[in-house]
């Protein structure tokens, strides 16, 4: 026991002296620098008054090194923030431009309606339907015309075919079930624009003399009843084939609306005459 006691006393004396030596002698800049750099390599975070405290006895060149690294860390964090903010600003700018175009459409007063956001799409019916966040509670009715903006002008996106209190289902012009009576804007010949469940549409029932030209615009026709006349729907993608049985022409058409980038739509309720309303409500 006494031996252990002695050993403990000797050890205490030895290490206490070593500690005192550390306390008294190595207050040189070299020692402070080594200590700072070792500690800083493990904890490279110095904030506020701590940095001044730690750098108080360190030579200028080492202090500058540490301060430069601190500044570098701070600037890297700021750069990351700025990049994030820039991305957000670009997104907001694009949204601002889109919304500004929408507001101009609302102000035109050509149609009375309300804006709605596309809230859902069905992967099984990608080109067929979308859901919007307005329903019967917001005054949306079945067969309401659904417009979208493309190139800053309103184009036909489809029509409402199911209305629920808080949301509605819109049948797009690209849907297999969609057909719109249209006319070629240049020649004025009418035809039936049908969706095919894909991006391109089919313009059928054209007379031989219609001779659709690629790029020619197709707009809604007054004869269609469901939609206001004169709304751009598509452009002719290319000359079509001839229906030999009926002596009529077909053409493929590119929709004016991009079904995969729809975000907001303008829903226009139409006041049909009672007879037509009754007829159209019976329609599928």
């Amino acid at each position: 026991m006494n031996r252990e006691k002695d050993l403990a006393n000797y050890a205490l004396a030895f290490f206490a002296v070593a500690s005192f030596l550390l306390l008294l002698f190595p207050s040189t800049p070299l020692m402070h620098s080594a200590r700072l750099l070792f500690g800083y390599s493990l904890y490279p975070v110095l904030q506020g008054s701590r940095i001044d405290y730690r750098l108080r006895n360190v030579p200028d060149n080492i202090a500058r090194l540490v301060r430069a690294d601190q500044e570098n860390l701070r600037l890297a964090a700021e750069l990351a923030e700025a990049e994030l903010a820039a991305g957000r600003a670009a997104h907001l700018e694009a949204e601002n431009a889109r919304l500004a175009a929408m507001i101009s459409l609302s102000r035109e007063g050509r149609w009375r309606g309300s804006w709605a956001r596309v809230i859902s799409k069905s992967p099984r019916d990608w080109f067929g339907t979308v859901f919007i966040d307005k329903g019967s509670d917001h005054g949306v009715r079945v067969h309401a015309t659904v417009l979208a903006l493309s190139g800053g002008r309103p184009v036909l996106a489809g029509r409402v075919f199911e209305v629920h209190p808080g949301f509605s289902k819109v049948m797009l012009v690209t849907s297999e079930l969609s057909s719109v009576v249209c006319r070629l804007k240049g020649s004025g010949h009418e035809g039936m624009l049908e969706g095919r469940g894909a991006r391109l549409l089919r313009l059928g029932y054209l007379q031989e003399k219609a001779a659709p030209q690629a790029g020619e615009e197709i707009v809604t026709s007054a004869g269609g009843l469901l939609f206001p006349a004169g709304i751009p729907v598509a452009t002719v993608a290319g000359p079509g084939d001839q229906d030999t049985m009926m002596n009529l022409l077909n053409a493929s058409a590119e929709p004016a609306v991009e079904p995969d980038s729809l975000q907001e739509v303008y829903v226009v309720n139409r006041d049909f005459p009672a007879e037509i309303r009754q007829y159209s409500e019976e329609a599928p």
Partner: protein
Amino acid sequence: MTFLKDAAFFLVMSAAHWWLHWSFPMGGLSPNLLFAAALSSAILGGPVRGIAWPFLFGLYADILGAGLAGSWALLYTLIGYAVQVMKRHFDLGGPFSQAAAALVLSLMSLAAYQFAYMAIGGISPLPVRSILLEPAISALTAPLVFHAARRACWRPCR
């Protein structure tokens, strides 16, 4: 072999302390593993090892800290010695006695550190909340570290 185990324990605890303080600073209240490791090695070690390893843990704390170089080394050396003295009178093998010893010694070491700084007219880098709460956290941590150290080193309490 014993030295290698001790050295491995030192490295593991130093790395764990660094990792804990770096990853989970918790406002300066993360457990002081260096103190717990110094206490554990003092309890497990003999008269020389039980003072030498606390000294080295203190030295590591000095290098990491911004205070007086050698101050923690001196305080941890004194803690090692105090544990050697306490071992003659108390059984420090149980968790309760370890927690009590950690509480008292942590409080005393922090007070001594603070006092040393006040004596030389400087401002202690320790935040007040650390001084108030660290002893309690150390009291909770010390038995766990001791258990881990004993299992790792396969050494009975001397």
